[in-house]
């Protein structure tokens, strides 16, 4: 990927295609390539390496939204997102991570709907060796979350992780249910810092934009978790999301085991995107 005194149109188009193929979306890819072209033109070095300019442009987008993350004591994290994204598994991995940092963790089973949802999270609580609160299957999720947070805080939990049911963002009744869960969490834990993370499957294409916009509109997202990046999907959509919604990626899911969660590193991510 080397340019020259004249930046090859073909080279730029090939790069743009790589970005689209990485699920960055045509508009974001176009904007980034335009930026690459501009910065490459200004490059007075003997040999212009387009790939370097490209990495720099993408890194710039990601770093501009990457605020440092530290969960206050006490702190709540709500995991939300569409069906099958990896919320329950991520909740379990986060529990293990925070427990390993010496936090007093509570897992709350906010999914009271899906078959064996509570059993799945129970298994994770056992693996991570953390406190776990669930309600009756089919009970109102907001009621379970309220009780779990109140009880958890009363018993000294300083890291409360709330798993919620998968829901499609175009289902207004389900989004209303989520708004209620968030309101109720605020009631149960007034003044306690609340993170709301959208769990996004790296295999997701442009629909991730709709997901993020809608979930953000409904509950105000504070971050993203990108899962299944151990597969061949590149997750380039997070670059588009950084630009449009300013959302930082907090963690990457890199497998199905308890330890398969890594803090997001923009530099490493860009290296994987543009090797």
């Amino acid at each position, binding site marked *: 990927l080397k340019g020259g005194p004249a930046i090859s149109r073909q080279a730029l188009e090939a790069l743009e295609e790589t970005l689209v193929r990485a*699920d960055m979306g045509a508009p974001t890819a176009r904007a980034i390539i335009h930026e690459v072209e501009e910065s490459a033109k200004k490059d007075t070095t003997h040999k212009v390496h387009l790939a370097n300019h490209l990495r720099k442009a993408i890194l710039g987008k990601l770093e501009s939204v990457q605020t440092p993350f530290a969960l206050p004591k006490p702190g709540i994290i709500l995991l939300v997102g569409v069906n099958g994204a990896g919320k329950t598994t991520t909740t379990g991995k986060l529990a293990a991570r925070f427990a390993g940092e010496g936090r007093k963790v509570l897992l709350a089973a906010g999914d009271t709907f899906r*078959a*064996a949802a509570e*059993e*799945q999270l129970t298994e994770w609580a056992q693996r991570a060796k953390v406190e776990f609160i669930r309600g009756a299957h089919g009970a109102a999720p907001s009621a379970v979350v309220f009780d779990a947070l109140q009880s958890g805080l009363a018993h000294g939990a300083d890291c409360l992780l709330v798993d919620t049911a998968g829901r499609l963002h175009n289902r207004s009744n389900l989004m209303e249910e989520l708004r209620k869960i968030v309101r109720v969490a605020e009631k149960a834990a007034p003044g306690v810092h609340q993170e709301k993370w959208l769990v996004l499957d790296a*295999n997701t294409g*442009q629909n991730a934009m709709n997901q993020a916009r809608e979930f953000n509109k409904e509950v105000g997202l504070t971050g993203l978790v990108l899962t299944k990046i151990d*597969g061949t999907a590149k997750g380039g959509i997070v670059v588009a999301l950084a630009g449009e919604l300013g959302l930082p990626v907090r963690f990457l899911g890199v497998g199905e085991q308890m330890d398969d969660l890594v803090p997001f590193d923009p530099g490493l991510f860009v290296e994987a995107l543009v090797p």
Partner: protein
Amino acid sequence: NLTDRIQKVFKNLRGQGKITEANIEETLKEVRLALLEADVNVETTKLFLEKIKVKALGKEVALSLSPGQVMIKIVHEELIQLLTPKDKTANKLKFAPAPPTLILLAGLQGTGKTTTAAKLAAWLKKDGRKPGLVAADLVRPAAIEQLATLGKEIGVPVFRPENGEKALDVCTRAVKTALQNDCNILILDTAGRLQIDEEMMNEIAEIQKKLKPTNIMLVVDAMTGQNAVQVAQAFHARLPLTGLVLTKADGDARGGAIFSITSVTGVPIQFVGVSEKMDGLEAFYPDRMASRILG
């Protein structure tokens, strides 16, 4: 939407006229953007646009239509054609000459296999057949529990692993004892797996080799992006896929990935998941899918 965008391209032409190289380039750009936005694979999009160009060049535009409308029609019809299998029976489940008929479900993690397995069982039961479910996911926590719960909900027996059985073992035992358990069709629910996971791909390839299921379906999430084709090709190389199931189509994802998969592999789309409920499974309609992809 695409119709408006294409109409704009042609707004300076009127009624009778020909579609030329010049005005078609602009239209193809718009169609390309629409397809990429819909998650159609980059390569599939290229091939599709080439087909459209050939079909559109030199096309006479009748007085009653605008050139834009003619273009839309060409794109829409081509998409429908590519979504429609040549063989009219390709979109149906096949039944084995001797029971039990087997349906093997495969796919990436979280695509909707377990839910689809139960929906298929409910569908078949309603159709007067005797389905059984086989819980062959020994990886995911509470996966067996999940399928057992759904089986109970729809009144279909579930074969669960016993005495340290692996995935192949429980499937084999289910096949051997299907008839005595009053099942003439078995749906094998498997663990989600990455197509690059050698061990897991070997596991499912072995199930296919030993039990030779009549139906092998790749379960694909409607919101899948550009990675879809690469994944599907890898699965198709290890398992001779007979059908695709598109899940979560009740969302607002355009579903271009399933079009890419079917056009590249030739595997027909057989069912569409439209809700989390047990009756949320529909047949596949090419024209509806074409409209959805074009937005």
